[in-house]
Every structure is written in C-alpha cells, then in structure tokens.
C-alpha cells in the first residue's frame, strides 16, 4: 500500500502539493489534472525521486525519505520521453543496467534479459543501438527496462504522449497486461475508463477521487 501522511511539498518558498491523507491500494490508478496541477511532483514523491518538505510518503511501510534505495526497488518509473530514460547504447545493455544496479549475477542477469526481450517481442533488437529505434520501440524498451527489475508498483508518466495511434495502442496493451500495480499519469482521459480508481489534482490538491467516470466529469467541469 502507498500512503501519504500530512504531505506538503514546497520549492523556493512556493507550495506545490498538499495531501493531508491518502491511501492507494487499487491495482490500476489513474492520475489526471491540468499542467502545473502537481501530477509530476505527486508521481516523483512515490519512488523517492522527491521527498516531501513535510509529512511522509510510505510504500508498504517503507519511508521514501529514509529507505530511498529499498523504495526504488519496489517502485519502477517509466518517463514520458524514453530518450531520457534509456541510458545505455544498446537495447540489451539498457535492460542490464537496472539489473546490475540490483546486484544480479551474470547468468541470472542474462536469463532475465532474454525473458524480458522475448516477452516484449524485442529479441531481434538486443544489439540494436537505442538511438536508432522507432518511438514505439523506445517506449517498449523503456518499459522492459523497468519491468525486468520486477518492481511491485510501476508509475507511468504520460507514456503515450509522444506516440502515434498504433504505438499508443501497443503501449497501452502492454500496460494493461502488467501484473504489477500501475499508476498512470495521463492527459488522455480515454485511457483511464477501465481503471479501478482515478485521482484528479488541481492546484496541488486532490480535487476529485473515485470511479473514473465521476472523476473525469469533475475534471472536465473545471474547464466549462
């Protein structure tokens, strides 16, 4: 379970997010809101990329403030632009990056990479230079690079924004097929209809929280 307890996040004297209490237990949660509403701050607080100025965010009881490393093992993060997420020159090497950070031995590492590449249909691209991939392939590599580390939760920060319709469908099918708990930040409201819960942020606070239809309606009402 992910829990926010008295969380305030400020930067340069400006309060960007205030969440007095919130528990996230559902398997698929959507996060919506206008630009600057606090979505990025919220999602970065979940895996300790940011720590709150006040209060505590805990993941299965682990504090993002004091257990950063353990939290990042539990919470994977897929960024909007895969170009900024893929850090190794070839596909296989990029998948190995996270596993090496977790201390996997060579044989186990190779086995996991083979399995991940096969699962995402990327086996033929193992030695391909990552900057030569298409946008859709890059996003799949970014997702594979995170899921191969086997986190319990995965945050997707607008993963379909830079994709065409075909690749968007492919990436969403991949996300739908994940066994992990997923938190999807998106401006694309159509993607969230089947989610278990949607949270709408507005001006750094939770504006609406509940079933997708109700929350999306509340969000739309902000812009009559």
């Amino acid at each position, binding site marked *: 379970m992910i829990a926010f307890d008295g969380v305030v*996040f400020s*930067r*340069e004297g400006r309060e960007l997010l205030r969440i007095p209490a919130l528990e996230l237990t559902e398997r698929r949660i959507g996060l919506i809101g206008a630009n600057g509403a606090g979505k990025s701050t919220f999602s*970065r607080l979940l*895996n*300790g*990329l*940011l*720590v*709150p*100025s006040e209060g505590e965010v805990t993941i299965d009881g682990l504090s993002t*403030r004091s257990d*950063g*490393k353990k939290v*990042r*093992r539990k919470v*994977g*993060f897929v*960024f909007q*632009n895969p*170009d*900024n*997420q*893929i*850090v*190794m*020159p*070839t596909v*296989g*090497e990029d998948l*190995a*990056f*996270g596993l*090496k*950070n*977790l201390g996997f031995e060579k044989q186990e590492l190779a086995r996991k990479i083979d399995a991940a590449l096969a699962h995402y249909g990327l086996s033929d691209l193992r*030695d391909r*230079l*990552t*900057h030569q991939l298409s946008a859709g392939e890059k996003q799949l590599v970014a997702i594979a*690079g*995170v899921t191969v*580390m086997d986190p319990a939760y995965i945050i997707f920060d607008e993963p379909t924004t830079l994709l065409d319709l075909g690749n968007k469908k492919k990436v969403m099918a991949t996300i739908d097929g994940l066994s992990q708990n997923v938190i999807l930040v998106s401006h694309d409201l159509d993607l969230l209809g089947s989610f278990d819960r949607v949270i709408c942020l507005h001006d750094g606070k939770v504006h609406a929280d509940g079933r997708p239809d109700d929350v999306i309606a509340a969000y739309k009402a902000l812009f009559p």
Partner: protein
Amino acid sequence: MIGSFYHERDTLLHRLPAGPKLLFVMVLGTMVFLFNDIRVAAAVCGGVVLLYAVARVPVAVAWQQMRFAVPLLVIIFAAQWFIADWRIGAIVVLRFAALILAASLVTLTTRTTAMIDAFERFLKPAARIGVNVRMVSMSLSLALRFIPVVGRVTQQVREAQRARGLENSILAVALPVIIRMLKMSDDIADAIEARSFSSEDVHAEDGQARV
C-alpha cells in the same frame, strides 16, 4: 572509438574478455613506435587487418571506422614527405592506421558493458585515493549513449532556426542546444536514480534525489 559500436559475430576475438583486448591496444600503441622500419610498420598494420578477417568484420564496416581518419592521414603523409621523405611519412601513417584500426576492432568485438566493466576493474585501485570509479564508468556509458542524441538535437535546432531564416548563426543553434541538453540531463539523472543506480543515496535541500 566512440563512433563505432559492437558488431555481432561469434569469433575468438568476440569471445575474448575486454581487459586483454584493451591491454593489447595499449601495448601495440607503445611497441609500434619502437621500430623505425617501414617493413615492421607495414607488417603490424597488415597484422591488424588480418585480425579484422579473424573477427569476420565486413570490409564496409571496417571502412566506416577508417574513413574519418583518412583525410588526416593523407595530410600527415604529405607533411612528413615535405619535411623529411616519403618513407618517414609512410611509417607514421602506417603506425596511426594500425592503432586506429586496432582500437576500432576492440569496440567492434566488445560489448559496451564489457568494456565499461573492464575500465571499472582497471580503475579500482584509484578508489583508494577518492576516485568514484562507478561514477567514472557511468559517465563513459552515458557519453557513448548520448553523443548521437546531441547530434540529433543539434540537427533539429538547426532546422528550426533555418525555418525562421537564421542560416549561419552559431549562437542561435548553440544556445537552444545547450538549454535543451541541460534540461535533458536533469531528466536523465532522475531516470538513472529511478532505476536504482546510486553511488550514494542523498537528497538536496530542495528535496530532489541527486545522482
């Protein structure tokens, strides 16, 4: 070496660990300058070319490694011929060609991660004097990964500026590229941190986790 990358094959040279291959280039780099004989220089260069055959690297791929160096080698040869004689020019060019080909062969037959691991092992003793070996090897990987990205960003900015009528302004290209790369470096640092890389686990005063 930076421009070339791994060329998948199952050969003896591909299977050889990165350490001995890097050592070979270092030793070759020293030995090739000990003999001042055109026959030795030619034999060394020929030997390296033979290694390309052993590694089953196609001629087109080998040429790709050399083509950027050829104009420089031509200039060096002409200058040496002018200053001394053509034999000296040939020796110098053969030495440099052997070294460039050998270094490229290492990158063509060695995965980047294996090379980085070898560097990391090589630099390990430096950790005792405070060098953060993990960060150095990570920087090498990032350089290899992002050189093509910087090239692409520069191309995009240049096209955007041309569309606005700025044909030959270096400043108009350089500034947006630098700003974009700085923004990108923040995102990359977040991405690296999010995938459990850390030399140490710290947060800056603004609450930001920092690699």
